């Protein structure tokens, strides 16, 4: 099936999310749609999927114009979509999720469960997915949930499969399995539209790459295009890939966590005997798949959660048992993983958000009153220093883009003398320009001798920033390694494989992306 988009335009109010986009997907082709967060990729796909009505433009299937009045029509036309946030119902079984919307039924609309199960099994066996049709979605790991989404699309006879940021939640090994599945689907004649912002992945799997910037197509290129070239197409200027930093010069250990255990209200050990040290002037990163206790660990360090046992010391002072305010006053800068709910008050102005932790102190407070002049003038300085792009510091935080919101959080946390910088997912959902900026500031903080603790699920970020890496799995630290550890090894450790075994396994089986890494390393060595 040949799919063509002609001049698709979609506006949300004054924002033009898609501006006259043209795209052709040939049968049996893996077509990558590359662009930054907010470039308009997902909007385009939601138009294609019938979820949004385009303001202008046409969709053609096999050279015939079609008109979708909702996802039902798109599915009937053979378009399937795996959304970035899975569209699965956690309390339903796999079979129920797969047949939802086109249920095989018997008398009085009662669902033919045997038939539903058989449908799942047939596709699952054909591609070797190993999915139990009767498992509840909430009990499945993310990788398996993604395969259920693919089964769901295939069971509706999808000939074009849209994968929206499918690798965002996967470990490198799971990504590898996904790449294998994509190739298998291609063999079977399915076209794939692969949406991503990760350069390495598109070069590994795509047949064609279309780059989108600010809602418009920049160009369609072959996968032989270099990463640097793709990046500059995506961002619109030449960019530095990776993080530029000198080797760390770690000083004495100033932040220590000892045997920290956190048991939550449901009795689950979220953090299980975690021990590590961070020295002055080093970046210590905690890698791991989302939901392995990282959130609980950071919240415990900040004092939001009381640990069941263990100790946390900063320059010899015990932090356990102190209130959040006391921890912040002790010199901890905290960048929460979810800036919009935990980092900012979106209904407050930028200036107000910048003093959330110091509203009651000199120079912002005078007695019981705030000093609005000082608050404002300081905010203007901070906004300039941290490159916060806003019309005025009186604008509401909710009106800023994700990248600028994150800069506000950083500006607040880093504009006082720090004894520890704790940053969780510091660049999640940011555009390349903002990521560069955030990384530069974090490295600068390290270079003045502050211990830096980064928690990130993005392996690229961990590899780029860290001086030492710990991998967290099911609440435990499964191993602490140096910054030059190969991504395949880290990926296996993120899935719970101990370090030595991970090294052996990674040597025996290289992932597609891991090979790409090695290729880059050799070529850069040759350059040198």
């Amino acid at each position, binding site marked *: 099936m040949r799919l063509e988009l002609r001049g698709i335009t979609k506006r949300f109010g004054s924002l033009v999310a898609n501006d006259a986009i043209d795209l052709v997907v040939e049968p049996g082709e893996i077509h990558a749609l590359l662009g930054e967060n907010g470039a308009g990729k997902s909007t385009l796909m939601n138009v294609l999927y019938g*979820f949004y009505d385009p303001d202008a433009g046409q969709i053609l299937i096999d050279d015939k114009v079609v008109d979708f009045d*909702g996802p*039902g*029509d798109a599915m009937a036309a053979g378009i399937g979509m795996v959304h970035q946030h899975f569209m699965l119902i*956690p309390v*339903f079984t796999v079979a129920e999720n797969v047949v*939802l919307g086109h249920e095989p039924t018997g008398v009085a609309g009662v669902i033919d469960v045997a038939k539903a199960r058989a449908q799942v099994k047939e596709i699952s066996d054909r591609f070797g997915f190993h999915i139990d049709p009767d498992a509840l979605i909430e009990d499945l790991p993310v990788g398996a949930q993604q395969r259920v989404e693919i089964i769901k699309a295939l069971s509706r006879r999808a000939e074009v499969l849209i994968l929206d940021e499918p690798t965002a939640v996967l470990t490198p090994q799971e990504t590898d399995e996904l790449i294998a599945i994509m190739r298998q689907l291609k063999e079977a004649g399915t076209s794939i539209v692969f949406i991503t912002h990760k350069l390495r992945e598109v070069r590994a799997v795509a047949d064609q790459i279309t780059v989108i910037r600010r809602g418009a197509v920049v160009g369609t290129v072959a996968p032989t295009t270099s990463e640097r070239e793709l990046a500059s197409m995506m961002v619109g200027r030449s960019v530095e890939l990776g993080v530029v930093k000198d080797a760390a010069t770690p000083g004495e250990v100033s932040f220590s966590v000892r045997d920290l255990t956190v048991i939550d209200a*449901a*009795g689950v050990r979220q953090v299980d005997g975690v021990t590590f040290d961070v020295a002055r002037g080093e970046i210590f990163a905690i890698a791991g798949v989302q939901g392995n206790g990282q959130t609980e660990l950071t919240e415990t360090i900040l004092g939001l959660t009381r640990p069941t046992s263990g100790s946390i010391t900063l320059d010899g002072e015990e932090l356990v048992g102190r209130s959040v305010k006391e921890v912040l006053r002790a010199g901890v800068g905290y960048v929460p993983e979810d800036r919009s709910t935990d980092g900012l008050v979106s209904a407050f102005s930028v200036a107000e958000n910048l003093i959330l932790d110091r509203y009651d102190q000199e120079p912002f407070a005078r007695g019981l009153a705030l000093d609005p002049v000082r608050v404002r003038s300081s905010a203007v300085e901070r906004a300039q220093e941290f490159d916060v792009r806003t019309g005025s510091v009186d604008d509401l935080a909710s009106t800023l883009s994700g990248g600028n919101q994150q800069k506000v959080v950083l500006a607040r946390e880093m504009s006082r003398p720090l004894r520890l910088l704790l940053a969780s997912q510091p660049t999640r959902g940011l555009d390349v320009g903002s990521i560069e900026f955030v990384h530069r500031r974090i490295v600068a903080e390290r270079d003045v001798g502050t211990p830096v603790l980064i928690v990130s699920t993005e392996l690229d970020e961990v590899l780029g920033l860290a001086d030492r890496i710990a991998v967290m799995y099911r609440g435990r630290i499964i191993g602490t390694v140096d910054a030059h550890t190969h991504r395949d090894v880290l990926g296996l450790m993120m899935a719970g494989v101990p370090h030595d075994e991970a090294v052996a396994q990674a040597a025996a089986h290289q992932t597609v992306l891991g090979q790409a890494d090695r290729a880059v390393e050799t070529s850069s060595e040759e350059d040198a």
Partner: protein
Amino acid sequence: MTAGKVSYRAPIAYAAIGLLSLIGFGLIPPSGRHTTFAISTPKDLFTIEPFTVPSKSTAIVFSLVALALAALAFWAARKRIRLGVWLPSVFGLCVLLAFLTWSAADKANSMPVTGLLQGSLFLAVPLVFGSLAGVLCEHSGIIDIAIEGQLLAGAFLAAVVATMSHNPYAGLIAAPIAGALVGLLLVLFAVKYRVDQIIVGVVLNVLVVGVTSYLFSTVLTAHRETWNTPPKLPVLEIPFLSRIPVLGPVLFRQTIIVYLMFAVVIVLQVMLFRSRWGLRMRAVGEHPKAADTVGIKVNRTRLRNTVLGGAIAGLGGAFFTVAAGLAFGKEMTGGKGFIALAAMILGRWSPKGALLAALLFGFADNLQVVLGIIGTPVPSQLMLMTPYLATIFAVAGLVGRNRPPASEGIPYVK
């Protein structure tokens, strides 16, 4: 490596209640008293004679069985074995029997077991219909606080239509229409105007009270004969089955509304969890966007099921007038809609559970009436509180961890 802590909360509660029962109903009261239980009704196939037991020793035996169950619960908690719902059920029954033996000791009237059960079922009828309405609405994602209003509207229209047509069955047909209208208003404000559903529900309750009370004190009172003297639904005895002792009078000597109730519970239980209609409705209540992406019309599904739910609650409203054979009275539902909501929660959003929970509340309600008649040692004011106390304990304590539909109360916007 240890797993989570063992929770002894439930076994401790069992032991405490068992001990109170042993001391209060068994050890303290004087010996030599007797309690009589009556089982049979005049129409039964064969008669089971009322039997008399010594009060003190019977209460002690039941309390000891309860304490044994508490010990079993301790052992199971220690070994981390799950025992299922039979344990709390049997435990509750034992304590209840000990209480009944004690409270009816040496009374002139015997304890009418069959009557007690029959009345319980009868009083549970509006609760069952009300909580089924809640089940339907909440599974499709709409919070239905307006059950009270739907019951009241149903009761009102049933009374008026039955009076005017001189036919109680006409009232039974009219009642769901009134309830459906209230449901329609609820879903209109919730879906179209995205008003907070709890607020809309409360406002609708007040609206229905206002409208029906106004009409009651004007038209219905001035011309009582033409507007508000509904005929009573006849009792339909199922041949043969109705003559089985105990079961017959309770289950098969009822009005049509009770039979309808059982039918609706069974149909909903099957359809909600096994049919396409049910799967789609629950999908909409759990994750509306996921439902939308597979071509299910979210708001249309919500509209249909909320109106259907309203109709079911309205049918339950007919209980107060045509089934009970009473004229419509101001605010005559008296908070039953809210107890129905509690029954829905206690029944964990399933029709079967709603039925059981409603029966429990109906029993508490009727116990208070029956004990009032035979005369109990407990002050009547305290007895009047039992249904509400049972509700609070049930909802707060027994429910444990449960999960309402994930997207209830949240308007769906693309």
